[in-house]
């Protein structure tokens, strides 16, 4: 049910953006927090909850900028940008976190495919970025080594 609801919403985004551009309505559409996706303990579950599928196509058009070695796992700067056209959402996952889903950024209207933030990582793992473009999902990953207590990676 939630999945269906979600898909509907993503498909509606294009229409909303159009309406916003023409100034017809002011869409302040706040979705309820996606508890199921954020509580998922594995990557598959988190992906299904967040984007409705666990199948993504690897793409070199997504760039993840993150440190190779993060000294402090509590603050890992991550920047995601993409040259894909019409990106409507960017999802960030940290593969080995207790709950892998970090955040989902729903882009609307004039937003560009660019997001930078700082995330927490439990241990060394892949950071996965998923971009949604034209109803399809593209992903890229990058390994970030997390050193805790300075004992080296």
């Amino acid at each position, binding site marked *: 049910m939630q999945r269906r609801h979600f898909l509907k919403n993503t498909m509606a985004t294009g229409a909303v953006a159009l309406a*916003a*551009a023409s100034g017809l309505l*002011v*869409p*302040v*559409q*706040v*979705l309820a*927090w*996606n508890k199921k996706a*954020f509580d998922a303990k594995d990557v598959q579950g988190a992906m299904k909850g967040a984007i409705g599928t666990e199948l993504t196509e690897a793409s070199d058009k997504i760039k993840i900028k993150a440190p190779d070695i993060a000294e402090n796992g*509590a*603050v*890992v*700067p991550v*920047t995601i940008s993409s040259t894909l056209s019409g990106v409507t959402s960017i999802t960030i996952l*940290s593969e080995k*976190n*207790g*709950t892998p*889903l*970090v*955040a*989902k*950024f*729903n*882009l*609307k*209207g*004039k*937003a*560009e495919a*660019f*997001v*930078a*933030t*700082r*995330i*927490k*990582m439990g241990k060394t793992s892949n950071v996965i970025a998923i971009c949604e473009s034209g109803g399809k999902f593209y992903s890229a990953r990058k390994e970030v080594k997390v050193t805790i207590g300075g004992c080296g990676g």
Partner: protein
Amino acid sequence: MAKSSIKIRAKAKDGVVTVKTLISHKMETGLRKDKKTGKVIPAHFIESVDCEHNGAAVVNAEWGVAISKNPYMSIKFAGASGDSVKLSWKDNTGKSDSFETKVK
């Protein structure tokens, strides 16, 4: 009114506005324990962040507990100097804050 929890810098360059924002929030995961009492500190984190450009939504972010303490977020969108940018957040205890500024 107390000082806003949100700091925003918005700058326009070549028709693209870059918004950088810092929110003051402890982003408690609900997994940590209080060292003195041994009790689990309840989760307290920002669930959603909305950014509006001239009154139209541009980004709606859904966050989990894995966003760092005192979150930083940067986004970009097409716009120009003098436009208004509004950022608001809401956490899992129902608290919220918002801040509006002009693009430089």
